[in-house]
C-alpha cells in the first residue's frame, strides 16, 4: 500500500518535470525566435510555481510575489553587470555594489537569498492577515517595492533600462532552473510543513487544536516562495533587459491568472497554467506577424492578441472554474485502476 502511495507521489513530481523537460526539448528544435518564447514560458513556470508554493498551500491570495521577483532581478542584475559598464545605467550605486561583480550562478543564489529574506521580513507582520486584507496588504508591498526600485538609484538603475547584464539564461539554464523550482515546491508540499499548512487551510480550528501554528507555517511558505521568486527573477534578468515597470502590475496579473487558470491548488496546475497561457500568447504573437497553420494563413491585426487571450482566459474560468487541472496533481488515474484490478484479481470488485 505504501508502495502505491510512493508511486503516486513520484508521478506527481514526474509529470511537471517531464512536461518542463519536454518544453525545453521543443526549444532546441524550433527557430531562434520561437526559442525566445520557450525560455519566457519556462521562466513563467518558475515564477508561477513560486507563487503557487504560497498561494496554493495556504489558500491566501498574495499580490506581492512579483516584488520578490523584482528584488531578485535587481540583486542578480546589479551584481552581474561588469564593473566597467555599471556607470552607464547605474551611476549612483552604493560603493559596495558598484565594485562587486559576481558570476552567473552566484548571482542566482544571491537573488534567491535576497528574495527569501525580503519575503521573510515582509511576512513577519503580514502573515497574521487573511483574505481580502492579506490581498491588499501584499498589493501594498508590491507598490512600495516598485516605488523604491524606481527612485532609489543607489541600489540599481532606477528608471533606466536594466541592460548590460550578461545573457546567461539560455534553454539549458532555464530548464534546469524551472526543474529545480518544481522539485523544491514538491519537496515543500510533501514535507511536514507543507502538509501542516494545507491542514490549516482546510480546517483552521482542527489544525490549531492539534498544535499547528498557522502563522508560522504561512511565514515559512511565504519565505520559501520568496526564495523561489527571487531565483526566477535572477533567471529573468539574465535573459532579457527589463525596466522597473515590466516587473509590476501586468506581470502580477498575468502570473496570478496563469495559476488560477491552471488550477490553484496543485503544482501540476501551476505548471500547466503557465505553459498553457505562454503557448497561447506565443501562438497569438506569431499570428500577429503572419502565421501559417494547417495550410491556412492567419494574420491578426496588431493588439488583437490580448483581446483573444483575455477572452480565452475568461472562457476557461467560466467553463471550468477549478482550472484546467481541476486543482489536482498529475496522475495516471486510469492506469492505476487497471493495475489495482490486476494485482487483486477479478474477484475484488467492491466499490
Amino acid at each position, binding site marked *: 500500500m505504501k508502495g502505491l502511495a510512493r508511486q503516486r507521489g513520484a508521478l506527481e513530481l514526474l509529470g511537471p518535470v517531464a512536461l518542463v523537460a519536454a518544453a525545453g526539448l521543443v526549444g532546441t528544435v524550433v527557430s531562434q525566435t520561437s526559442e525566445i518564447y520557450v525560455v519566457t514560458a519556462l521562466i513563467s513556470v518558475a515564477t508561477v510555481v513560486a507563487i503557487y508554493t504560497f*498561494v496554493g498551500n495556504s489558500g491566501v*491570495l498574495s499580490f506581492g510575489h512579483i516584488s520578490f521577483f523584482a528584488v531578485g532581478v535587481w540583486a542578480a542584475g546589479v551584481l552581474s553587470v561588469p564593473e566597467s559598464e555599471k556607470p552607464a545605467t547605474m551611476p549612483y550605486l552604493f560603493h559596495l555594489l558598484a565594485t562587486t561583480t559576481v558570476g552567473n550562478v552566484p548571482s542566482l543564489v544571491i537573488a534567491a537569498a535576497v528574495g527569501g529574506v525580503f519575503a521573510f521580513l515582509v511576512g513577519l*507582520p*503580514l502573515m*497574521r*492577515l*487573511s*483574505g*481580502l*486584507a492579506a*490581498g*491588499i*496588504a501584499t*498589493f*501594498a*508591498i508590491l*507598490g*512600495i517595492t516598485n*516605488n*523604491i526600485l524606481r*527612485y532609489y538609484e543607489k541600489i540599481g538603475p532606477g528608471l533606466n533600462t536594466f541592460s548590460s547584464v550578461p545573457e546567461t539564461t539560455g534553454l539549458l539554464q532555464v530548464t534546469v532552473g524551472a526543474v529545480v523550482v518544481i522539485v523544491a515546491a514538491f519537496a515543500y508540499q510533501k514535507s511536514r510543513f507543507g502538509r501542516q499548512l494545507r491542514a490549516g487551510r482546510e480546517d483552521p480550528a482542527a489544525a490549531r487544536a492539534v498544535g499547528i501554528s498557522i502563522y508560522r507555517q504561512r511565514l515559512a511558505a511565504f519565505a520559501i516562495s520568496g526564495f523561489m521568486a527571487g531565483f526566477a527573477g535572477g533567471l529573468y534578468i539574465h535573459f532579457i533587459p527589463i525596466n522597473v515597470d515590466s516587473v509590476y502590475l501586468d506581470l502580477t*496579473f498575468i502570473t*496570478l*491568472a496563469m495559476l*488560477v*487558470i491552471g488550477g*490553484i491548488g496543485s503544482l501540476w496546475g501551476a505548471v500547466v497554467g503557465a505553459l498553457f497561457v505562454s503557448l497561447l500568447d506565443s501562438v497569438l504573437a506569431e499570428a500577429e506577424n503572419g502565421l501559417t497553420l494547417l495550410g491556412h494563413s492567419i494574420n491578426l*491585426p496588431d*493588439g*488583437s492578441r*490580448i*483581446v483573444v*487571450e*483575455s*477572452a480565452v*482566459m*475568461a472562457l476557461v*474560468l*467560466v467553463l471550468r*472554474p477549478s482550472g484546467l487541472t481541476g486543482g489536482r496533481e498529475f496522475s495516471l488515474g486510469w492506469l492505476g485502476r487497471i493495475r489495482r484490478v490486476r494485482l487483486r484479481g477479478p474477484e475484488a470488485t467492491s466499490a
Partner: protein
Amino acid sequence: MTGLVASGITSVLHDAVQPQAQVDAIGLGSIYALMAVGIGLVFGVMRLVNFAYGQLIMAGAFAIAYASGRGWPVWAGIVLCFAVVLLLSFAMDVAVFRPLRGQSAAVMLVATFAISFLLQSIALLWFGPLGKTATSLVALNQPITIGSADIRKITVVAIVTAAICLGLLLLLMSRTSLGLHMRAAAIDAPTARLLGVRANLVSGVAVLVAGLLAAVVAVLLTVQFPTVTPTYALQDTIIVLVGVVVGGMTRLIPATLGGFLIGYVSGLLGDALPSNQSQYLPSFLFGLVILVLLIRPDGLFTRGRGVVERV
C-alpha cells in the same frame, strides 16, 4: 534636520487646509465614494470583486467622447453613456458573474481581471492608445470665485450629485423591502434565500445600481479629464479598491466611507505636496494602508462583529 522636516510638514498642512484644496479633495472623495458604492454593492450581494468596474466607466466615457465627436447635443451623449454602461454591466453579469457565483475569490478576481484586459484591449483596437476627447461638458470645468478660492463648477456638481445619489441609495436600502432583501443577502445569503428572498433579483438590482453609478462617474470624470484612453479610470479603480478594503468591504457604509477617505486624502496630498518631495509618497501611503490593515483587518469603519451596524 528636524527643523527642515517640521517646516516641510507645516507648509504641507498649511496648503492642505486652504478652502480650495479642501473643496477639491471633497470633490474627488465624492466621486470615489460613488465608485466605492458600485464596487461594494456587488461585493456585498455576490461576494464578487469586480476589477473590471473601471472599464465600465471607461466605456461610458468613450460613449460621451464619441457623441461629442459627432457633434451630438450634451443630453444625447449622456443618454448614450448610460445606455452603453448598463448594457455592458448586464452582459458582464450574465456572461461572467452568474456562472461564477459561489466560486473562490481568486477565481472571480482573475475572471474580472480578464474582462478588464479584454475591454481595455478592445478599446485600444477601436480608439487607439491616444483615445478620444470629450468636449461637450468642458464649460463645467470653468472656475467660479467664492471668497479666496477658485472652485470649479464641476467640483460642486460632483459633490451635489454624489450626495443626491447616496441619499437616494440610503432611502432604497433602509426604506424599501427590496433594500432590506439586499442588505439581508449581503449579511447571509443562504438564509435569505431560505426565507424567500429572490437571489437573482437582488443581484440583478445590485449590478444595475452599480452600473448607474458608473455612468454617473463617467460623466463627472469626463468634465475634468476629457481625454479618454483605454486605461481610463483604471488607476482610480485600484485606489478605490484599496480604500474600500481599508474602510471595510463587507458592509456598504464602511466601504463608502473608505472610498471617500482615500479620495479625500489623495486629493489633498495631490494639491498640497510639492512635486519634488512626492517621489516616495506612494510608499508612504501604502505603508499607511498596511498599518491600518494590521490594526483593523476588517476595516477602519466596521464596528466589531454583531454590534450596531445599520445602513
